[in-house]
């Protein structure tokens, strides 16, 4: 099944979120990111966090697995927190240590900023967890199509992604094979310092590149003989179609955005 594709972090399933059209998921993610920047009060942050957790719950992804996707940005999150904490201007000083002082305002700003980052990554990782790379590619192609007039090569980008998805496992297998063959002949890929190791990799890369170019050449001929002539006049077996659940999802995400916009500017509007 699709789960055979080890690439990316796709986690197969049949939840509400899994069944959404990929375009819905991509657009909803973008709208959510905009909504994040509407948030200023702690209430709005609570709502955003609650929404993200609800989406993860509905998608039936293991919460721990999704949270793990935050790991690579943790350093940035801590840095953001630290910088804001110590440098943001503020009145109420909480405590001072040597020449550094932490203010109430700085702390709040730091927490909000790091929360923004984490929510942003959390929500977009739900997109990649619930959408197979192939379907994601279809979605991106479809969304980019209107921009073809201004020179965005939508079909070409999607085709390249498709071929990359197809050949990455093949090239990995090949790398492995060449590595084993060269290890058997005494090559060493695992010891020495970084520079030494990089140097040892060189005899591996040369045959790999030669083979990759030969593959590309043969693939191009095979594609042409199967009538490939670019995106013009091309149809798809699975045309993307918005269904009821997609409209429901759009409704929800718009409602969330409207709520956050109201929380930010609503009181000001009412005062007018």
């Amino acid at each position, binding site marked *: 099944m699709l789960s055979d*594709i080890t690439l990316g972090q796709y986690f197969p399933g049949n939840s509400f979120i899994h069944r959404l059209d990929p375009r819905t998921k991509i657009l909803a993610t973008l709208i959510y990111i905009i909504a994040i920047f509407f948030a200023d009060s702690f209430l709005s942050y609570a709502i955003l966090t609650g929404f993200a957790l609800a989406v993860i719950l509905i998608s039936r992804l293991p919460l721990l697995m999704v949270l793990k996707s935050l790991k690579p940005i943790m350093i940035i999150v801590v840095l953001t927190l630290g910088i804001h904490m110590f440098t943001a201007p503020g009145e109420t000083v909480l405590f001072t240590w040597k020449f550094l002082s932490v203010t109430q305002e700085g702390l709040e700003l730091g927490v909000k900023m790091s929360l923004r980052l984490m929510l942003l990554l959390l929500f977009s990782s739900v997109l990649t967890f619930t959408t197979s790379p192939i379907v994601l590619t279809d979605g991106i192609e479809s969304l980019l199509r209107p921009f073809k007039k201004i020179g965005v090569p939508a079909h070409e980008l999607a085709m390249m992604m498709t071929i990359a998805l197809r050949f990455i496992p093949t090239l990995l297998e090949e790398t492995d094979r060449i590595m084993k063959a060269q290890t058997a002949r005494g090559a060493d890929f695992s010891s020495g310092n970084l520079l030494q190791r990089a140097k040892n990799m060189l005899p591996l890369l040369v045959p790999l590149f030669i083979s990759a170019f030969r593959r590309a050449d043969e693939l191009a001929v*095979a594609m042409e003989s199967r009538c490939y002539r670019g995106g013009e006049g091309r149809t798809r077996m699975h045309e993307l179609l918005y269904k009821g659940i997609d409209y429901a999802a759009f409704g929800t995400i718009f409602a969330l955005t409207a709520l956050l916009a109201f929380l930010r500017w609503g009181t000001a509007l009412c005062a007018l």
Partner: protein
Amino acid sequence: MISVKELKHIYTDADGHEVSALNGINLDIPAGEFIAIIGANGGGKSTLARHLNALLLPTSGKCIVDGLDTAEEKNLWDIRQHVGMVFQNPDNQIVAAIVEEDVAFGPENVGVPGPEIKGRVDRALAAVGMSEYAKHAPHLLSGGQKQRIAIAGVLALEPRVIVLDEPTAMLDPQGRKEIVRTVKQLNKEKGITIVYITHYMTEALEADRVVVMEKGNIRFSGTPHEVFSRVDELEKAGLEAPLAAKIASELRKSGIKLPKEIITDEELAEVLCR
């Protein structure tokens, strides 16, 4: 179905030298025939194959497919739909990371409507016996299975001719059997014309007609029995005759009377036991 007349092809290699790969080939392939092309490496088999669906164009001479001249630009896409090509390396002709997506690639290219593509994909996969693998990732399949997916990808374009250029060269014996069986079935059941290039005598035996190519020329042709019993001529063309045919030929030379066309071990055993 296919008519090749005085076909010449000259390549210009990297140093600018001209290499003549085909020196005036004449070949007629009627609809529904299963024709095998054999010959030593560099004989021009692949070059000829690539002319059949206009991947190469004649330097001189003509190549007519189903009444369409390959040299005419406007015929290009019709010809490529009529004549499917299967290549040697199964890995390098599968485009998509899911089997059914790959089989759909051809029909998608020519603009077949979505719902019809699904039907074509299902039928093509059934024809090569790979229906249950529709949702699999191709890189996890065996060589023979991958090559059958490649054949299905061609079938989905509903071609009248399938040209296979050494499709079994990279397969194990099991995979080779799968491919030969599949191809024969397509020929017999669907009436698809087959042009089958191979190194293996046993595979060529399945064909209606065998053509021997050497140095850009067709040396001789005939039924598998006619061709493989011409031991000396095969050797001159750089090919090895089947062992039984060689023994029969030696026996004949030493004055033993034997019926002419002995090419398999069984046939030899039978006449010797009489």
